[in-house]
């Protein structure tokens, strides 16, 4: 563990839970929303505009007593591809991994096609990720592609 990481963990250390580190600083609130953290019963600490050796500025989110499953956490790869997931138990780091773009994206991205049923009725959106490198999402309903630059979160 680097000094940088240790210092932050000390500042607001959690005994058990998850730290999502290296979030692009503009994406922290989006990550909070995607993971529905405001509605969760867990204590959530977050920071933006923190210094990072690697990225200049970064954001961080700490969720007490919560361990995410991989499907849940991979959702944030769409907005925070650089994020790292650190699991803490008894103040010790027990695992550290990078997020991965998932194969399917359900319920939190808007279809770019204004003529799509998901933009006309209450239909949860659903996409197949057909290109992970350039982030292209194929809508399960209208069969049109939503590209990275057109992604809007619901």
């Amino acid at each position, binding site marked *: 563990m680097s000094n940088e990481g240790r210092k932050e963990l000390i500042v607001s250390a959690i005994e058990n839970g998850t730290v999502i580190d290296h979030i692009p600083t503009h994406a922290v609130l989006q990550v909070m929303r995607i993971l529905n953290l405001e509605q969760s019963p867990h204590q959530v600490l977050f920071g933006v505009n923190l210094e990072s050796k690697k990225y200049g500025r970064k954001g961080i989110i700490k969720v007490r007593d919560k361990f995410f499953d991989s499907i849940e956490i991979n959702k944030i790869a769409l907005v925070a591809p650089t994020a790292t997931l650190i699991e803490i138990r008894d103040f010790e780091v027990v695992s550290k991994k990078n997020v991965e773009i998932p194969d399917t994206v359900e319920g939190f991205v808007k279809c770019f*096609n204004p*003529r*799509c*049923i*998901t933009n*006309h*009725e*209450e*239909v949860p959106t659903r996409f197949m990720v057909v290109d992970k490198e350039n982030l292209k999402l194929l*809508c*399960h*309903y*209208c*069969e*049109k*592609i939503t590209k990275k630059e057109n992604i809007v979160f619901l």
Partner: protein
Amino acid sequence: MKNRSLVSITDFTKEEYLRILELAQHFERNPIQKILEGYVVATLFFEPSTRTRLSFESAVNRLGGKVIGFSDASVSSTSKGESLADTIRTVSNYSDLIVMRHPIEGSARWASEVASVPIINAGDGANQHPTQCLLDLYTILQTQGTLDNLHVAFVGDLKYGRTVHSNVIALTHFNTTFHLVSPEELKLPSSVKMHIKEKQLEYYQYTDIQEVINKVDILYMTRIQRERFSDPMEYERVKNSYILTNSMLAGAKNNLRILHPLPRVNEIAYDVDANPKAYYFQQALNGVYVRQALIASILGLV
């Protein structure tokens, strides 16, 4: 295929399509078979399309089934603000199969997820119209005696034409060589070309229809609409170069047949109609046999 919905051309396998085409031949020979007695098929047309609706209803009637439904959203409860999901759930209670056409893309997929009976998509906006594709395949088979190794030209609006997209995707199963004729602005989208490339088939792109006429087995004509052009001047410039006239067919192969999903506007001159190579009216008739085959298979009656 029993109890399965047909929403998109990619929902069924090549073998399943061939099975439908084989059954359609059987219905062409014996169109009147009362195997649907006691069954109710709903035709829900949220936007009007008389041609497609009559073709489906004719298919059901010839099989001895009953049809319920509407031909225009203004007479349905949708005009009172009912959601599509609610309409579909309700109609599921009254019918064994729902045929639907809707202006919104993806509506048929959504309906197939909320309905308790199978759905046949009869067109969802610019997205899919798989029974048109099936009847086109049937017509190609009927006129050429095979679906394999043919040279097929698609002419006109290849960018927005959903019929062209489905047909290209379906034909990639049959080692087709594609000849794609369109104005620069209306070329086949790369998402559809991707299917051709995946199967390592050949395709050629042209802007001049005359270049393909003498070398293909099927000439599939489509309409070019003014509103598809970002520059109206460009439309004026190209519109007459995608009109097929009888004199252009002088050097065509004997087995060439001209298809068109209809209705046509001016892209096929009337003097072509008398040419034995013109096949678009027979093509429309095939729609009934193919729909009989599809309905009978989905209801598990054949």
